[in-house]
Structure formats: structure tokens, C-alpha cells
């Protein structure tokens, strides 16, 4: 039974990391389209560099890193996400949506004039 458990452990670990490596590899080699990830888009088709997307990306990466770190420290239960992180992520999303809403509002106003 112990051999089977070891086999399952290494197999799952290998599958997870192979998938992760494949996706990350394709992200960096261009196999997965990342064009426009940091660009906002107005209704008339124009794109603009979007700082609200950059801050959302940074907060997401930081939250993910912090969570994996917490799991590695105590891998017996899912660690509770602190209220601070939830508030930070919520505010970050609010900024992102605010920027998007602002761009949409301006587009609507320009198109009606």
C-alpha cells in the first residue's frame, strides 16, 4: 500500500508540474495569446495602457504567492485568507472595474455627442 501511495504522490506531483510548466512555457513562448493583457479597450476600438490592469495583476500574483507560502508552512488544512487580503483584492477589483466603467462612460458620452 505504501508503494501505491508513493506512486500516486509522484504521479500527481509530476502531472501538476508538467501542466504548470506547459502553460507557463506557452505563455512565455507566445503559444498562449497574451496580447492586450495590460491594455484597456474603449468602445470605438482604441486601446490604451491600463494601470488598473497592472495593479490587479500585481495584487493577484502577490495573493497567490502568499497563499502558496501559507500552505507550504502548514500543509494540514487550507489556511484562512485574512480579511486584509480579501479587502486588498476587493479594492483592486473595484479600481479595475472603476477604470473600465470610466472608459465606457466616456465612450458613451462621446458617441452621443
Amino acid at each position, binding site marked *: 500500500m505504501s508503494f501505491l501511495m508513493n506512486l500516486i504522490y509522484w*504521479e500527481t506531483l509530476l*502531472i*501538476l508540474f508538467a501542466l504548470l510548466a506547459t502553460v507557463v512555457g506557452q505563455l512565455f513562448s507566445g*503559444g498562449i495569446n497574451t496580447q492586450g493583457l495590460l491594455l484597456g479597450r474603449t468602445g470605438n476600438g482604441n486601446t490604451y495602457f491600463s494601470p488598473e490592469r497592472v495593479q490587479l495583476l500585481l495584487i493577484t500574483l502577490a495573493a497567490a504567492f502568499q497563499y502558496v507560502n501559507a500552505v507550504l508552512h502548514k*500543509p494540514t488544512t*487550507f489556511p484562512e*485568507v485574512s480579511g486584509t487580503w*480579501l479587502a486588498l483584492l476587493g479594492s483592486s477589483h473595484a479600481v479595475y472595474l472603476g477604470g473600465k466603467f470610466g472608459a465606457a462612460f466616456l465612450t*458613451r458620452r462621446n*458617441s452621443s455627442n
Partner: protein
Amino acid sequence: MASSLQWLELLIGYVVCIAVGLFALVVIWKILKGDIDLNLLISEKTGDKTGSASMSRFQLLIFTFVIALSFFLIVISNAKLLQTDANVKRTQGPMMPGLPEIPGGVLGLLGISASSYTVSKAIQSNTPTKDDAGAPKAP
């Protein structure tokens, strides 16, 4: 009787393990060969054919890997703990590792992400596009 059941349990364990491994190998091989196209994995339709990368989808991809890795580490860690305990407390009968509880904070995290995606889609669909501007107005 118990012995033959244990053999059956082991056999099924090995068969499932090998089947899952082969399936994963085929999927990864097909991705690397290009038969499974991941080009638009984090993209969404924007009117043109290529599509543009979506921050919400990218965020969901990151969270999926984080939760999957965490889930795996926690299950394995609990199984190892139970194995060690079982060696000490053999008299208490068989101990099965349960699936870990998912705390409300993690669900909140995914909820924020999903809600933001929905609101973002609503804003996007209510924004007039180039085609709307050129189209004749309804009487």
C-alpha cells in the same frame, strides 16, 4: 476473505493510477504537439478574430493552479499523518483521510474574482461599439 479484498483494492488502485497517468501523458503530449490548441486559453472575443487576453481569465488560471496545488499538498500531508498515526493506534480500526474543508475566505476570493468578471462583462456589453455608431438608428 479480507486478504482477497485487500488484493482487489490494491489492484484497482494500480489500474486507476496507471489509467490516470496515461491519460495525463496523452493530454500533455497533444498540447506539446499542438493538437490541443491553447492559444485562446485566456482570451475572449473582441470582434476581431484573434481576441484579446482577458485579465479575469488569467486570474482564474492562476487561482486554479494555486488551489489545485494546495489541495494536493494538504491531502497528501493528511494521508501521511494518518499513516503515522495508524502505526501507533492500530487498535482504533481503519482511519480514512477525508477531503479538507475549504474555508470561507477561499470561496470569498474566488467569489470576488467571478463577480468582477461578471460586472466587467456587463460594462463591456453596454459600451457602444464602432458598429453601433455606424448603424442606422431604429425609428
